[in-house]
């Protein structure tokens, strides 16, 4: 019965897998990047859920508050969010260059052109 209380984590797992599925099932290069960003954001949600304390407040110290949520996951995820956007930006730059030199941003097309070139 106590398993049911993990509903939060379960939905997060599902979210992660949707993102992951978008990355591997779509052939469009921009869509893949979007999928990655969904995947990563969902992992962030997992981390943040971990840090939550029932009845706690945001970890900004103040008089009269005894229960705070855990600040460490927050710090880690702040870092990870920035990593995420850095990856996205670089990925987009690559997509733009690929689009310019292949004339397509579909995996299938590019793979075909490469095979012909070989």
């Amino acid at each position: 019965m106590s398993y049911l209380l993990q509903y939060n984590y379960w939905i997060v797992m599902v979210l992660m897998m949707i993102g992951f599925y978008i990355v591997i099932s779509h052939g469009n290069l921009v869509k893949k990047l979007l999928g990655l960003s969904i995947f990563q954001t969902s992992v962030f949600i997992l981390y943040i859920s971990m840090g939550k304390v029932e009845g706690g407040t945001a970890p900004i110290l103040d008089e009269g508050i005894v229960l705070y949520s855990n600040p460490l996951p927050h710090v880690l995820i702040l870092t990870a969010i920035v990593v995420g956007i850095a990856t996205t930006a670089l990925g987009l730059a690559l997509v733009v260059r690929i689009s310019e030199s292949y004339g397509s941003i579909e995996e299938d097309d590019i793979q075909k052109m490469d095979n012909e070139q070989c």
Partner: protein
Amino acid sequence: MLSQLPILQVILPLMAAPLCLIVREPRLVWLFSLLTSALTLGISILLLQQVLHEGTLSYALGGWQPPWGIEYRIDPLNAFVLLLVSLLSFVVLLAAHTSITREIAPEKQTYFYMAFLLCMAGFLGIVATGDAFNVFVFLEISALATYTLIALGSDRRALWASYQYLIMGTIGATFILIGIGLMYMMTGTLNMHDLAQRLPAVAGTRTLFTAFAFFIVGVCLKLALFPLHLWLPNAYAYAPSIVSAFLAATATKVAIYLLLRFIFTVFGVEFSLNHLPLQTILMALGLAGVFMASIVAIYQQNMKRLFAYSSVAQIGYMILGFSFGSVTGLMATLLHLFNHALMKGALFLALAGIFYRLGSVDLDKMQGLAKRMPYSMAAIVIGGISLIGVPLTVGFVSKWYLVLAALESGWWPLALLVLAGSLLALVYVWRFVETVYFQPLSEANSQVKEAPLGILLPTWLLVVANVYFGIDTQLTVGVAQIAAHSLFGSAS
């Protein structure tokens, strides 16, 4: 000052990179990067000495004691890999200027050196740190820099290879992030040493098993372990030659280090290899990697691609080594880590020289080239011999220990398979020798000159190292032994 060495090792290249943006002039930037990497090399030598004399070093960043702050923890294994990375980076950078002027547009060269330094700093950071999340951060620094470096290749396929690597690499990094997150969830700590002490208490839980699985799969993606290697051949083949040399010599080694560190130090041998079927899985994948990749390598026309597949095969040997779960096996892995870096460094640098003259590394354009470029070709032949594992080269030393480990554990069929794998290497090296030495010089190549000295010298430096460490094994075997023992020591 000596106590600051662990951190200096990493922040030196890290701080040098933004300074490059201020210097700007490519030639100066090159000299500056070279100086930085020379200093890094010096520091890593000092560190190794210090560790061998005084034992494990711990450096608390920000003055906060672990596990509250981030810790740099240098034991013989780190020091060994740090030396490997900084040594190879230095040698490769020596050759960079000549090769890069040919392959990368002048206005992008500064960015190239910056990315190179950042990548190196990332690798060093991964190896030096004792904090699980810090690994992720430095993993991303090196990864983003690597994508950039690969995409600077002149062929448009470099872009595609870089993109594929970006996707695979990010999936790998995210898996690692999930793994670290779950570990943190179960123990409340991120410090590796602290993790190692707290994990046994939760060893039986399903969550920890999941964490372990995600972490290992994530690292294996980065590592290009068969069958997750698909991004590697293209990335190595179309990246600028110097980048191929750098990555082949360092990137996968760092990933192997990470795998070893977590399997042996953090999770412990008991959990990783004895409780789980990981040993069998790794052994099977390692062997499959050796054979499949070697066979594919035989059919390659592009030499860089050929050696890239050969890298996948060699990674198989490294995995095989430590999957025996014995000190000798681990030693074989560590030795091969170092030796393979020397071999692949030499081979890819020689190819950089050939690319400089020919503008291509296709095998069918190299007919009879030994007459025109004798030194480059000789370098490849010696590197190839080392790859096969002929006595008097470093390749022999690591194969020897691998076979020894197999026999020691009573897996004698495996010893035979390792030898069979070497035969496959013989086949692809022979293809090259035949084309270059025994076929008549083609018309197009009749005016080709020997590779420029700027590339040839570093190449031969590594070739000589290949032979030297093949004869005088005291240093490498000695350090590998200490490192292997320390890993098993920390596990028990």
